[in-house]
């Protein structure tokens, strides 16, 4: 950056520092005795910075468990990409969007396949079929709806994974959460309650993927609660579905 740029930066830093100081001291910037911000555009930027510093999004931090969810999802996809292809028919690829990217190794492998589009399509469908056929299922349990959702049933599958336990919930009859609300899944045991994640259930056709950082054997009570946005991050008491993850 040139000298003018440095001077401009200095002026910017001085002005923004004054603005932040004034805000912290509850002083109107116009009363500080300093000249007003010279550039209206920068004044807007300063306003936005001050606004952002007061926003919950700036300070709330990333929810616990999101990292494991991301890496778990990607590992599953990477593993699937390494699976050899077959050409047997498969169900409609509801996960097609989630599978349309392969790892570099898989991309190189794909290049070795004859380029005809039909073959590629069969290959992709075949990979999905094998992926589903070979996907470990883990232990499965039945969940039932409570009085709040009497028609709801679900199969809850627990699968140990390197980063935790993948908990899949294949639910039926569970009404979609209304706008402003959502479902949250939990594990409870003698030592406390652990969140598994949240979902709204407004689209069907795929199991709900949740993750646990604790062994469900020590937290055998599975429950789903209906939560209102803005509520504290703890079970609301509106339990809509329960299961016992114990043989």
């Amino acid at each position, binding site marked *: *950056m040139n000298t003018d740029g440095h001077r401009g930066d200095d002026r910017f830093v*001085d002005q*923004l520092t004054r603005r932040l100081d004034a*805000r912290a001291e509850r002083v109107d910037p116009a009363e500080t005795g300093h000249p007003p911000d010279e550039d209206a555009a*920068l004044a807007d930027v300063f306003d936005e*910075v001050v606004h952002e510093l007061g926003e919950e999004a700036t300070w709330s*931090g990333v929810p616990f468990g999101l990292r494991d969810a991301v890496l778990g999802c990607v590992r599953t996809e990477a593993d699937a990409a390494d699976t050899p292809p077959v050409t047997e028919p498969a169900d409609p690829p509801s996960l097609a969007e989630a599978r349309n990217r392969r790892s570099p190794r898989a991309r190189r492998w794909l290049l070795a396949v004859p380029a005809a589009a039909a073959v590629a399509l069969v290959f992709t469908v075949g990979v999905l079929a094998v992926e589903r056929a070979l996907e470990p299922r883990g232990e499965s349990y039945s969940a039932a709806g409570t009085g709040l959702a009497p028609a709801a049933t679900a199969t809850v599958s627990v699968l140990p994974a390197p980063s935790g336990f993948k908990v899949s919930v294949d639910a039926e009859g569970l009404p979609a959460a209304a706008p402003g609300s959502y479902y949250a899944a939990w594990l409870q045991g003698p030592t406390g309650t652990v969140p598994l994640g*949240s979902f709204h259930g*407004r*689209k069907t056709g795929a199991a709900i993927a949740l993750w646990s950082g604790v062994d469900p054997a020590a937290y055998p009570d599975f429950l789903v609660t209906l939560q209102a946005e803005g509520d504290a991050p703890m079970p609301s008491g509106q339990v809509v579905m329960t299961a016992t993850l114990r043989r």
Partner: protein
Amino acid sequence: VASRERPRTDRPVLARGVLLRFRDGDVDALGAVFDRYSSAVWAVALRVTHADPLAQEAVQETFVRAWRAAGSYDPDRDLGSWLLGIARYTALDVLRRELRPTRGGHEAEQDVVVEPPGIERAWVSWAVQEALRGLNDSEREIVRLSFYEDLTHVQISERLGLPVGTVKSRSHRAHRRLAELLAHVRDDTEESGPENQRAPGRRTPIMTDAGERGEA
């Protein structure tokens, strides 16, 4: 104005080896990228979606999309800017998806229009989030108490058990440091032109690590 050491804004935060492994689809490298940028992505996602569950979905999808597209990432370019672009549009996608007709039939069929301020402010959210990473813990806490909890210097001094004068001096120091770390916003504003002053930045605002942060 007295000269001062300018914040270093061009030093890679993640080792080049990590960036190369990320480009090659390495999952552990993605974990390192998540650790470095998830706070900023989260802030952007919340800014655009205004809802925690949607923001979670957007963050997850952002990193999955980034991993899928990593083969097109140039390790010589700033990863933060590249990721910010994905985060903004992914958050928009999630919001649009959410607003489409649903099984519950809550909304009528319609073209979804996302309010521009949400997406435009995403850039400032990102820049502020990155700048806060450049403060040490005590500076960041004072800024949080002052701006987020809206406490006065006296209240902060009582909360932290510090003399008011110490709170004031640390507060001023934190503000100046923050302003220095946000100085690139001026460049981006000028280069974008006044009519487009909130365009996404072309580089990750702040490059810091714990080793650079001074203690109060």
